[in-house]
């Protein structure tokens, strides 16, 4: 029973983080049609910034906020500096094939990832560091029994939950949120409504950047921080997005939690080395049984 509870609780905490990563991926996919493989590279970079600030005697929360702001800025810079020129009218002449049009942004995001990793190496010597938690990471006690959940896990779940609620309110109740949804669904009609779709798109990248920064801050206390530690997170986030539905924000969150539980249970009941294979099998199953994801909608192919 204890291992079941352990798997359940750790799955929830991990799932929350995967949900954040997945949400960030889907935001950019829906808003810009690009799967941003550099996303966790951005998170790694901003987490290093936060780590540097903490080492220079700033408080955790100041570093936290700075990291989130940097995440937004970095996301906006990636769109403005790289993705926009990539898809501008001039360049479309070069990309005559359909597959290249989807492939080139993927390659660009991989390039960004490489650059970010190298910069992290240059600025911070690529050293592996721990990352602090604002809440003690001890197991919570009720009476004399140790629950399989730590204070930090609760912290993670609370913050992610708050972030998801905020995001949901933003998208459904604000004008900018409506503009973002409209831009993703039908850019032409949105432009005809007087809205600058390109600016809205950049905002989407910024929000995605913030979400991934948050994920980085929440996961590194457990995994430590180095240029490569967040790669696994990208894989899981991607699988979560596919499982939940690349075209659905709610689906991405759902997928994140599902994957959190899958990985937690594999870790507890099988072996940690099997995690990669489990993820791969899960991804392939999802792609073959329901390619549009649980909450996604089928893309209509117009011939």
């Amino acid at each position, binding site marked *: 029973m204890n291992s079941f509870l352990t798997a359940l609780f750790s799955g929830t905490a991990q799932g929350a983080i995967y949900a954040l990563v997945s949400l960030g991926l889907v935001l950019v996919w829906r808003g810009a049609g690009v799967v941003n493989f550099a996303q966790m590279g951005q998170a790694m970079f901003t987490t290093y910034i936060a780590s540097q600030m903490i080492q220079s005697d700033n408080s955790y929360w100041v570093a936290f906020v700075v990291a989130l702001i940097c995440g937004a800025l970095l996301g906006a810079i990636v769109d403005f500096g790289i993705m926009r020129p990539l898809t501008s009218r001039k360049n479309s002449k070069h990309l005559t094939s359909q597959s290249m049009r*989807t492939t080139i942004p*993927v390659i660009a995001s991989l390039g960004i990832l*490489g650059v970010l990793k190298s910069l992290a190496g240059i600025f911070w010597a690529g050293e592996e560091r721990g990352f602090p938690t604002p809440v003690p990471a001890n197991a919570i006690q009720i009476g004399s029994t140790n629950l399989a959940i730590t204070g930090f896990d609760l912290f993670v779940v609370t913050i992610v939950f708050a972030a998801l609620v905020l995001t949901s309110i933003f998208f459904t109740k604000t004008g900018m949120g409506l503009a973002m949804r409209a831009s993703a669904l039908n850019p032409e009609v949105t432009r005809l409504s007087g809205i600058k779709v390109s600016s809205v798109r950049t905002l989407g990248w910024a929000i995605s950047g913030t979400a991934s920064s948050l994920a980085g801050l929440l996961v590194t206390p457990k995994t430590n921080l180095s240029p490569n530690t967040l790669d696994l997170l990208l894989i899981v986030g991607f699988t979560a997005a596919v499982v939940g539905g690349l075209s659905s924000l709610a689906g991405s969150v759902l997928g994140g939690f599902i994957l959190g539980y899958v990985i937690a249970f594999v870790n507890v009941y099988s072996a940690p080395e099997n995690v990669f294979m489990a993820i791969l099998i899960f991804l392939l199953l999802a792609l073959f049984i329901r390619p549009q994801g649980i909450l996604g909608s089928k893309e209509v192919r117009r011939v």
Partner: protein
Amino acid sequence: MFRKKTHKIIGLRSALLSIVLFLSFILLSNQFGAYNQSQLANIATLLIAVLSITLLTGASGQISLGQGAIMAVGGYSAALLVTRLGLSMWLSFVLAIFVSALFGLFLGLAAARLSGPYLAGTTLVMALAIPSIAVRFEGFFSGDVGLSVDYGVPPIWLTNIFGEISIEEWSLYVVLPFTAVVFFTTINLLNSRAGRTWRAVRDNEVAASLAGINLSRTKIIVFVCASGLAGLAGALYGFRGLVAPSVYPTDLSLTLLTAAVIGGLRSIGGAIFGTFAIVFLPDLIEKVSKNFTIPESVSNYLPSLAVGLLLLLTVIANPRGVAGALESLRNSIHSRHQK
């Protein structure tokens, strides 16, 4: 009759080009010292893997981030065949092609239904899952320590003809025949009916399937071919001395892709240029940075930074790569001539 003639011409031309390639490498190596000779051998080896990307992504438009992992498959297959079954190196290289092609079959089966970011992400997951198998079954694969293998010594009849042959030169002589054959095969594949089919799939899947092309079958075939090539490259790469997870790091796939993109995804000449660039870039950077005082922590990461920046620059400013830029230049000179 006409078709046979073009076939013969392509076959002849590519055979000549392959021989030219072979001889130029040998000529170059004679000008070089030992270190650069081994770099040349690296280029000849990695060129095979980059050509697999030219076929897979350049000709057929399928993006795979797992070519590095397939190289590992080839490397481990050959190493295991030699160390556990005592087969000859040459035979194990050939068999490694088939094992990798088999993996490519599985990749292709998965990829047949996917495209774009789905395909990229899935191959990325595969790229990380395959090495984890080596860790999972540590006993069989010798875990992180890996398997020690090498090219062996040059046969006596060769040293009798050419005199003393260094290790670096021998490695080049081992790899180059394979590179030349791959070169020959790639040129012919690209100019054949298969090549046209692949390009049709790349340019417009809907139109291609309307024209009667079986999309799934084509994609599977491409993956099988590209994986066979990557596996061969991986085997040759591993036999430089060690087959272990560290020899095939996760960013190897990206490095190969970068080489192909920088040089020009769709051109074999581009693949050659890109591979030379990727292999010699770290050395070039080291030479330049020696003139400045740069702390070691920075200089360690300069090559990867340069590679990443080059990739970005190419993708934004010059998507067709160096080969594409040269072609545009040639075209504009031509049209100016005609005026």
